[in-house]
């Protein structure tokens, strides 16, 4: 494992290498070398299985972290390849030629985060949603509760009290911390 990591560091400049558990190591790679690195891992290092690919929205840093989880059946090791891209309209290299399910993931990411993967088949088609007219829902700034309340509404007749506030109002309205 260390050998591989050293080589990846040397050849691809990966950083942020973290051993999460014996069977899982994650590292970060630059967007430009990501596809080559993943292809290399698949073809030469035996990481032939793509468990999944997904995305984490770090809205506070303005980036999407794409995660490709690769698995080596012989060594029973998983590699989490992290790739940071900008949240703003940045394209990512498609890996649909590497795994047959990859384009589905890319289609999903397109829909849920709005990430573009040029060349990926059927990218613009609806995946889960239909007639979606808001920002991609998995983005952190999308407030699903508020959306649901506005669009679908809730049945009326609900009202709840906080025990603490209720007791203050009912039992000691003029006391307690009223300063400031």
């Amino acid at each position, binding site marked *: 494992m260390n050998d591989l990591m050293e080589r990846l560091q040397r050849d691809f400049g990966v950083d942020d290498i973290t051993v999460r558990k014996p069977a899982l190591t994650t590292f970060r790679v630059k967007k430009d070398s990501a596809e080559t690195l993943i292809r290399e891992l698949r073809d030469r290092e035996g990481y032939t299985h793509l468990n999944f690919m997904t995305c984490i929205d770090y809205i506070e840093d303005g980036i999407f972290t794409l995660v490709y989880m690769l698995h080596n059946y012989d060594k029973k090791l998983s590699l989490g390849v992290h790739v940071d891209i900008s949240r703003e309209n940045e394209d990512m290299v498609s890996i649909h030629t590497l795994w047959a399910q990859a384009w589905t993931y890319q289609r999903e990411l397109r829909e849920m985060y709005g990430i573009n993967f040029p060349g990926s088949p059927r990218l613009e088609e609806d995946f*889960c949603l*239909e007639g979606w007219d808001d920002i991609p829902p998995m983005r952190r700034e999308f407030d699903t509760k508020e959306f649901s309340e506005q669009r679908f*509404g809730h049945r009326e007749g609900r009202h709840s009290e906080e025990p603490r506030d209720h007791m203050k109002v009912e039992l000691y309205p003029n006391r307690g911390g009223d300063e400031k």
Partner: protein
Amino acid sequence: MKNSLNTDDTLENSGLTEEEQLLFSNARPRAYEPYPIKAVEDFANWARANSLWILAFGTGCGAIELRPLMTARFDANRFGVAGRPTPRQSSVFIIGGYASVKTLKRIIRSYEQMQGPKFVICLGICPINGGMYFDSYNTINQFDQYIPVDLYATGCMPRPEALVASIMALQKKIKAGECDGANRYVENFDWYKANQKKVIKNWDMPDYNW
């Protein structure tokens, strides 16, 4: 050939293209009128109550309990319940819990295609007040906003026994001639349509499918 009723009382079908508009009717639904003789209507209701054909459209988790219901252990066939693959042959629509917007569109289509008198049972909490997915961006919260509902059975999921109970309750209601869901749909058609169109943003089907 535009098989329209060229009166003010037609549907716009604005979701359809010019070409498609020719293919679909723009007639409004008509309410069911009971037989003028009460005994006949009662007999019809008795017959309806004892031959409830369920549309085999598992719209949500509820579908999982429909299978035990229909198979040997709970054997709903003895209540005259049978599953039908097409809406045209079905009289009962069981909404199996939550309905995503995408499914709601299909539900509406299927429901409108069903022959009247037709009945809707909502299973679980989600159609009542959003349930588990009350804050989801893709599931509706109050099913009766879109399709009239005759019975609700709460639970998550309601057990097959609760389903049997709700079928029995539905039978009772039908026999009493109180299942007017389909007529409510007709009477408040514009209200229902407006609600439906509020959540279904790509309305590309006729306003009334039958």
